[in-house]
């Protein structure tokens, strides 16, 4: 290209390059190779130093250069430096190309001749390429300071409070009628044994009262559009059938309601009404009507709640509605489930009444639970012996290969709570390994060893009620191999507690599509980097916190929520972020609308415009991988700074030597 005036700079990098590559020869070669285009070709000791950069700036002015090529180290190291120097010299920073003759040449080559030849090839490739470069503009994206947090468990609550306390508006979306999550169901927390509700309730109340937090309970995110800084979110606000503005939360409606249903919060071990608040400390502490149970919705009669409601807050006609909000960043804190006990038939849950899940036991031992804190069998009797079964579904190739991380500790906690109430009760822990890795955890385990709990190293293979001898009659028999003594044992107990695996929410996959992030093989959300970006996702501006990323205990969850909040605050503080420059786009005239590219885009940045019969790329969503460009049969898709012409020029140049 005759209008190109290229300046070529070959760096010695002290002796790092010059010790192996004959830099003077390379610089001369470039000038001789393209005497018309290469106006000036220099070698210099340290190009990245200030005088080195000044050389570029000065030459641009003096020789009226419009392209710059630097042969030095890796572009990952100094591309930015030289682009800035190019820009300071007065030409667009993208009229610059770098040849990596240090990491890819001088440092890895033994022979001086071979190194010099290779350096020439890489330099000539850069010269060919830079001729096809075009001016590109840096783009920035404004960050909307409003934040969406999905999930009102301890992770969502922590993050919401931190972000709101810093003065930013937060929308906290929770699927159920109250925030609190699983932590609200727990009795005590390990290893300190402080009461879960006592530490959680104040936080829940703060959320409810916070002027910067808009609480959207009984709601679900349906659709997310946009990109970092500018998300448009559709939230489904399910009809509560109660006007929460008017409702005073007096609870008369709940007393008067004649219809009963199993209470999910109590794991169906107690009833609730059709109009209900899930638990006494709920936030908001105002009821919703369960339309599937309510008589009025079934046959048009009753309306008892309406009759007794002083403020007239009952709204039978309320409909589900979609609310649209605009936010700049999103935190997913959607939590986890326990594996369903029915999916492991060998443990007889449902078949044997006195097989309990861990959560059932949490409620049983909780003083606000269905039994008022009394540990009793389903028949209401005090158990004389209890088996606690670790790793039910976890660390099991058949079910979940991973360790659920919290079971050992809460199993110990259960033992302690049982022993506290019934000192004579025999407690058996059936474990594979005791994993007590946290602060104060091992100490807690040692304490339990002294409290008279029986530890059996072996996983229970089966629970049965088939007695082989009279002492087993009427009991649940735990069949386990005790690996300490190498025999199979049968231990009869009155009650068995299953420490079920923590599993990803069944809706996690769907959520991953809504939020364009990914889930791993077990359904947990995938972090951007397992070590260095543990709360980021592949989608900029969308973060994850808590157990939706993988099993974790409360301290880790809270720490992650704090980290996610810090990431969000960082974005808000910056106010804008630099957008990717090397994005792809589609030349409209050339596009034949074949849609080859649409499905290949990992960021759903490409949409098909049916009216125009063309595909279109949303530049804000594009991250610049160029997969669509590699697939486009018409050459309509192109990637900035990685255009076909540029790469072909590079291929041509690299093979010219």
């Amino acid at each position: 290209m005759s209008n190109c005036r290229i300046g070529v700079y070959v760096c010695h990098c002290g002796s790092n390059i010059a010790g192996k590559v004959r830099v003077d020869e390379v610089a001369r070669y470039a000038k001789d190779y393209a005497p018309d285009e290469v106006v000036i070709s220099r070698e210099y000791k340290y190009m990245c130093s200030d005088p080195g950069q000044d050389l570029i700036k000065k030459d641009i002015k003096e020789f009226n250069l419009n392209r710059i090529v630097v042969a030095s180290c890796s572009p990952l190291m100094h591309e930015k430096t030289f682009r800035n120097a190019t820009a300071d010299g007065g030409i667009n920073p993208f009229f610059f190309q770098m040849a990596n003759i240090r990491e890819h040449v001088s440092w890895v080559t033994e022979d001086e001749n071979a190194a010099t030849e290779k350096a020439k090839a890489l330099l000539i490739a850069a010269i060919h390429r830079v001729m096809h470069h075009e001016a590109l503009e840096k783009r920035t994206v404004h960050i909307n300071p409003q934040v969406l947090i999905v999930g009102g468990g301890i992770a969502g609550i922590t993050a919401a409070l931190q972000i709101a306390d810093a003065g930013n508006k937060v929308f906290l979306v929770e699927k159920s009628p109250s925030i609190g999550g699983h932590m609200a169901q727990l009795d005590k927390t390990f290893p300190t044994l402080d009461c879960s509700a006592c530490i959680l309730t104040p936080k829940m109340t703060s959320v409810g009262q916070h002027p910067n937090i808009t609480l959207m309970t009984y709601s679900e995110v349906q659709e997310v559009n946009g990109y970092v800084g500018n998300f448009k979110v559709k939230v489904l606000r399910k009809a509560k059938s109660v006007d929460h503005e008017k409702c005073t939360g007096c609870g008369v409606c709940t007393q008067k309601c004649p219809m009963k249903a199993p209470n999910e919060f109590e794991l169906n071990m107690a009833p609730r009404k059709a109009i209900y608040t899930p638990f006494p400390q709920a936030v908001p502490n105002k009821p919703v009507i369960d339309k599937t149970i309510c008589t009025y919705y079934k046959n048009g009669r009753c309306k008892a709640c309406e009759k007794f409601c002083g403020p007239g807050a009952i709204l039978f006609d309320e409909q589900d509605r979609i609310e649209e909000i605009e936010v700049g960043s999103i935190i997913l804190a959607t939590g986890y489930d326990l594996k369903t006990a029915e999916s492991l038939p060998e443990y007889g849950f449902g078949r044997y009444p006195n097989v309990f899940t861990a959560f059932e036991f949490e409620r049983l031992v909780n003083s606000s639970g269905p039994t008022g804190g009394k540990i009793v069998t389903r028949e209401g009797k005090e158990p004389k012996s209890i088996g606690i079964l670790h790793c039910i579904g976890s660390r099991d190739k058949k079910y979940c290969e991973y360790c659920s991380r919290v079971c050992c500790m809460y199993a110990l906690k259960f033992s302690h709570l049982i022993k506290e109430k019934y000192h004579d009760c025999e407690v058996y822990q059936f474990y594979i390994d005791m994993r007590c890795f946290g602060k104060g955890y091992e100490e807690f385990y040692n304490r339990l060893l002294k409290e008279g709990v029986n530890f059996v190293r072996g996983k229970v293979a089966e629970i049965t009620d088939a007695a082989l001898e009279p002492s087993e009659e009427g009991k649940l028999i735990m069949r386990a191999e005790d690996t300490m003594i190498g025999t199979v044992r049968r231990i009869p107990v009155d009650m068995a507690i299953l420490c079920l695996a923590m599993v990803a929410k069944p809706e996690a996959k769907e959520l991953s599509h809504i939020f364009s992030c990914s889930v791993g093989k077990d359904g947990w959300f995938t972090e951007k980097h397992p070590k260095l970006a543990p709360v980021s996702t592949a989608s900029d501006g969308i973060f994850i916190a808590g157990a939706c990323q993988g099993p974790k205990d409360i301290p880790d969850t809270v720490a992650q929520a704090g980290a996610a909040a810090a990431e969000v605050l960082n974005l808000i503080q910056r106010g804008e972020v630099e957008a990717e420059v090397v994005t792809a786009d589609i030349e409209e005239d050339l596009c034949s609308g074949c849609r080859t590219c649409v499905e290949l885009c990992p960021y759903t940045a490409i949409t098909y415009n049916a009216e125009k019969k063309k595909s279109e790329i949303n530049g804000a969503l594009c991250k610049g991988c160029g997969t669509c460009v590699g697939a486009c049969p018409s050459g309509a898709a192109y990637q900035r700074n990685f255009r076909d012409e540029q790469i072909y020029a590079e291929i041509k140049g690299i093979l010219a030597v």
Partner: protein
Amino acid sequence: MISEIKKYCRELLDSKKVDAIIGVSEEEGQWMPFLFTESSQLDKLFVDKKYPLMTTSKPMKENILSYIQRKHPGMKLAIVARGCDERAIFELVKRGQVKLENLEIIGYACDRRQAETCTCPTPHPTKNLKFGEKAEGVKEHKLAAEFDKMSLEEKSRFWHKQFSKCIKCYGCRNACPVCFCKTCLMEAHFYTQPGELPVEYPTFHFVQRYHHAAQCIECGECELACPMDIPLRLMSQPLLRQTKELYDYVPGMDPEQECPLFTIKQERAEEASDELF
């Protein structure tokens, strides 16, 4: 068979079930596509001569079906189609070029002799066969047995010889019913210098063959069009065999089936089982 087809078409037009029928007609000794709108025109409908009905007309940059569908949205159309025409329609549907809605495919089978002319493996429509009996297809290219036995060196020499004949007429591309791009990379300057012969070997031909790796419907038009008798399909067939083996995909069989090069859905599913560590 032709009289039955005509009878059927007449009924379609007379009963107003369709507004027009695309078929092949003869005008002054020339075969050409024709839009039959009146049943009286049907005397001129022919089916026994091979005509690349779905081929994109280069000046129009569009094929007939797509053109009519765009010009007359909502028009109820039928098309008298061979197996290859149907496959071409299905491939073009996948690539957003034509629509199946408001389109009846009146499929008819070719006989064995016709299949041999085109080296056609599936000489009948797979979804819309209405007239004629399925004849057995020709599974292998006439040179395939010989070609498959060649060593790499022999293959390389074979193609050098074949492509040295190429006069860069673009006939293979122009005749292809599944080529539809508005601009063609076979004309892009970084692959091929305008006006230069011999063609850049092998990029020139590679462009089309690669683009059709999971798209070629084996209609044989490219070879029939080639004035230099270059056996182009020998290059495509291993690719088609591979897509069949790897993804159980045969182009043109089902408009719903996704082209394996358009999607990584399978990998997304596999991801669940992929060992990450």
